[in-house]
């Protein structure tokens, strides 16, 4: 572990990206403590403060460092609360997709036969179909809200985990240590859980990192199109969509700052994922 960390730190861009991710997650978690106002408590909002540029000192007596939106909400506070929702959705969808996809992939590799073919056909068919379209249709069918959105994100993403887990499991199964474990009286279940699964983890962790970034991006896109969460739970995508109409009149900060927060998060997660991929890749080992 210490060695892994030492190797990770050799790449300063990846280290910086990890620091950015940690910082953003911490800021989102601590949002109620470090923001000047609760952006969704209507009593805090004053329409006289609406659409003010960054640096404006509002009626609350504090500086709006990133300006305010159309309802007079402090954008810095709104962004941190929005990050909370975006991160929640991304991590929840990523975790469920990880569990479902990995189970299906490992099941297919272990059972074989008709079930293997059935599962992998479905996965391949889905991978050839764009994720965004699938998510769009599901959200349209199931309606708005957290659960439909997570179902849509999971459906759009589990196939990547299933493909990866299947590939890793079929490769690992042919190795000697699994053969040796089979020769012992261990039940099949514990061979899969204690020996096969841990050795399939590295590629899955990489896919998981990238898929959390993708889930956040997909959720933002759906929210931007007005198909994500209801307006009472605005994620970053909705903040950007709300600011879009003011962009033409030069009030660009309402859209631009939430967008910068979103991109920082996604790019940082992707760079961390890239570094993990390189470190897990045995072919690049020295």
């Amino acid at each position, binding site marked *: 572990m210490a060695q892994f960390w030492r190797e990770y730190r050799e790449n300063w861009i990846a280290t910086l990206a990890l620091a950015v991710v940690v910082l953003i997650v911490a800021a989102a978690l601590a949002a109620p403590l470090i923001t000047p106002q609760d952006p969704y408590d209507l009593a805090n909002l004053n329409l006289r403060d609406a659409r003010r540029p960054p640096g404006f000192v509002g009626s609350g007596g504090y500086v709006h460092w990133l300006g305010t939106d159309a309802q007079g909400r402090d954008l810095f506070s709104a962004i941190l609360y929005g990050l909370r929702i975006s991160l929640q959705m991304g991590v929840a969808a990523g975790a469920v997709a990880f569990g479902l996809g990995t189970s299906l992939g490992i099941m297919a590799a272990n059972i074989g036969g008709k079930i293997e073919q059935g599962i992998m056909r479905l996965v391949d068919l889905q991978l050839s*179909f764009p994720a965004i379209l699938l998510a*769009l249709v599901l959200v349209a*069918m199931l309606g708005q809200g957290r659960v439909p959105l997570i179902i849509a994100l999971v459906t759009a993403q589990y196939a990547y985990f299933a493909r990866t887990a299947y590939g890793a499991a079929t490769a690992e199964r042919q190795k000697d240590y699994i053969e040796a474990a089979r020769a012992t009286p261990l039940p099949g279940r514990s061979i899969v859980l204690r020996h096969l699964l841990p050795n399939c983890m590295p590629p899955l962790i990489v896919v998981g990192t990238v898929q959390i970034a993708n889930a956040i991006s997909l959720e933002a896109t759906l929210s*931007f199109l007005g198909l994500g969460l209801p307006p009472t739970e605005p994620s970053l995508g909705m903040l950007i969509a709300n600011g879009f109409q003011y962009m033409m009149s030069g009030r660009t900060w309402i859209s631009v700052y939430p967008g910068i927060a*979103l*991109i920082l998060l*996604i790019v940082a997660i992707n760079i961390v994922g890239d570094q993990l991929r390189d470190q897990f890749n045995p072919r690049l080992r020295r």
Partner: protein
Amino acid sequence: MLGYIIQRLIQSAFVMLAMSALVFLGVYAIGNPIDVLISPDATQDIREATIRHYGLDQPLWRQYLAFLGRLLQGDLGRSFVLNIPVLHLVLSRLPATLELALTSVLIGAFIGIPLGIYAGYRPESPASKAIMAASVLGFSVPTFWVGLILILTFAVNLDWLPAGDRGPTVEIFGVGWSFLTWDGLRFLALPAINLSLFKLAMLIRLSRAGTREIMLSDTVKFARAAGLTDFTILRRHVLRLISIPLVTVFGLEFGSTLAFAVVTETIFSWPGVGKLIIDSITSLDRPVMVGYLILVAFLFVTINLVVDLTYAVLDPRLRRGRRV
């Protein structure tokens, strides 16, 4: 070869059948279409008459067969909102989307492949590193956000290009096209660039990886020994060898470009099928949703088929009917 074509055709037909069943179940069976069709204060008689008229009293498999029968005759129903046949509606919007998607895929190919080959040919040069860093950004940054920034920069701040809408079109065979006039091109520019960035990033990565691999191969060593210049080697050997995986990705990416056009069309109010599906989702226009999905599925299956057949032409191992 003929056997291979027939086999792939039968496979495609089966996939289409499965897709139509899924779409039918997804859109018609979940939720109750009757609530959309009949106003809540209609009398019991009208309710029953309407249910019978649309065949909703029949068992589900019968409804599906009837749906399939109409589908084969090209009847996708009428839009609840606009009261126009769905096929007509989607087909009238399709050229705008095809034009946008094709332009952006071409931008991606003509800029992305040369850049990727260069980055693979000189992997250590600063220019290659810059190209790769840009492609990471192209991958990560969401399409809708890039669209906003493009509008902000080129339409609002610089005022060079229009921010949305399609602008003037030229009619050919009864279909309007933008790319034939200078003014139309100006309207096409921003949405096409927006849509192409993801493809661009992907094609750069793929052609770089392919080129790096092939530059180390014996083919290139022998070509060098024969005294060919590096440029000729890149053009004649590398480009041909990386073209096989590129055609696959290119074809599949064309499909996903059609899907991502949903986002771009919404931002730039481009009047294509992507905007149509978003509008029909917000107005709960089920026949339009079904029609769009069936047509997109059909496009996907056709593209996959064409990609496989192109593969067979490009790869001599497949051409002779041998399995790889």
